[in-house]
């Protein structure tokens, strides 16, 4: 099976500063891959290179089989992306946001309305359909943002701290959406500061100062570091 993401010695320098320092890893199709690290460890920079927004200084990487140097436009069409802060238009309604983003991703009107309507039913948001997004609780907004980011059925979705500040129930509902998407074959690349969420990933990586220090299944990392939670693994690695 082709890998969803491959990275070999991927590096990004800003002047003298090396933000991402030769990271090598790959992600399988349909995998939920947790991308962890302290603030400033280089996660955002690495993610920007993978989604075609930033050109690497050196190294190689492919996303959905496309080269990050030469085929970044193809990558953008193949992936979904949901940013740290809520990225929908607050003044537009739920259905308008879906229609708008579906159009940006090149879906024809019939298809995007069909998928939007089904998604709204699946989300249990029928009564919010014509409500402005700005008036929704954060948990709903994030679930909606995920739906919008995956409406065009991308091969891979990148989620940058999707659950920050979300209540504990909505946070779990969000992860169930992730599982459902992954079960359908979508690859999920996700960053989070909630260590319990790291346990939900098939594999996680931990970055420190631009380098990838660990990358494995949560249960193997816990065994390797002789601790009982990913939080302890993280603290051991990031404080070392």
């Amino acid at each position, binding site marked *: 099976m082709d890998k969803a993401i491959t990275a070999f010695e991927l590096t990004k320098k800003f002047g003298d500063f090396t933000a991402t320092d030769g990271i090598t890893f790959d992600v399988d199709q349909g995998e939920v891959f947790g991308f962890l*690290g*302290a*603030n*400033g*460890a280089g996660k955002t920079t690495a993610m920007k290179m993978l989604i075609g927004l930033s050109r690497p200084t050196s190294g190689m990487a492919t996303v959905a089989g496309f080269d990050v140097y030469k085929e970044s436009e193809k990558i953008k069409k193949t992936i979904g992306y949901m940013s*740290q802060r809520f990225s929908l238009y607050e003044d537009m309604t739920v259905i308008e946001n879906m229609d708008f983003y579906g159009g940006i991703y090149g879906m024809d009107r019939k298809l995007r309305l069909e998928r939007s309507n089904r998604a709204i039913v699946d989300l249990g948001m029928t009564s919010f359909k014509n409500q402005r997004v700005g008036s929704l*609780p*954060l*948990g709903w907004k994030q679930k909606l943002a995920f739906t919008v980011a995956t409406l065009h059925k991308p091969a891979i979705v990148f989620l940058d*701290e999707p659950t*920050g*500040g*979300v*209540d*504990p*129930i*909505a946070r*779990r509902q969000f*992860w*169930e959406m992730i*599982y459902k998407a992954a*079960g359908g074959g979508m690859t999920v690349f996700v960053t989070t*500061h*909630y*260590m*319990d969420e790291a*346990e*939900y990933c098939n594999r996680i990586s931990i970055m420190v100062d631009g380098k990838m220090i660990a990358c494995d299944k*949560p*249960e193997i990392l816990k065994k390797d570091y002789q601790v009982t*939670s*990913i*939080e302890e693994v*993280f*603290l051991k690695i*990031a*404080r070392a």
Partner: protein
Amino acid sequence: MLKINNVVKTYDNIRALDDVSFSVEKGELFGLIGPDGAGKTSLFRIIATLLLADSGSVAFDGRDVVKDYRYVRQHVGYMPGRFSLYQDLSVRENLEFFATIFNTTFNENKHLIQDIFKQLEPFQNRKAGDLSGGMKQKLALSCALIHKPTVLLLDEPTTGVDAVSRKEFWQMLKNLKEEGISILVSTPYMDESTLCDRVALIQKGKVLQVDTPPAIAASFDRVVYQVKGHDLYGLLEEIRLLDGVHKAYPFGDSLHVYGPANLPLKEMILKRRPVTELEVEVIPANIEDSFMNLMVKEDG
């Protein structure tokens, strides 16, 4: 120290704070726990004299925060949720600036922030906007402390901050508390609530419960069954269909299933799904279990 009485605040037709009452004792580390949109920021702004309540009152040191706002401002240290220091000023300049507007100097009160400033010192000439997330947060805390407040109001100081910096930050709060400073701190991280003396759980403008973290966890009125096994998501969907199961949620590397006592959960699961590795164990509820339970009740 801080007494909040029946505070109500509405924006258009949204009730941001709905009859909120609790008090913070002197020297207490008090947590305001709730998700985004619960009303935490509105409450902080009312206490900090930056926003007027529709009704109800807040007293600080026995003085009303509206009438005696000058006194309150002199003695309260407020760290807003958004990074609100001057990005174009250096670390040192920000500290000098905040000291000056409170009629003091950085050197006079440097000892108050010694421990935190030690970590900032190597960067003291760097612009605040160029600091990493963890460092920005340390600078913001220092600026809130530089005029020697008796109470600190910290609005989500650890949101978006990594697990290591969060640990360090809470250690700093503990040290400040030992120096006698009262602290009201809000957070969406349930695990941080266990580090507080007492917490108020807040949702949609309403205080659901105020108590010590162990007491809140103990008030959970069902039994928590911890389930471990392979394919947790598949197990979760299966478990939700079982009779007697109230709710089931993923919890890190296990599931928490809420139900009545003496539920033969393991047998029930095995009947529907003959898996080889399955552990079911009754465990004490934690504060997150309690909070989710209260949230569900509140929603009816």
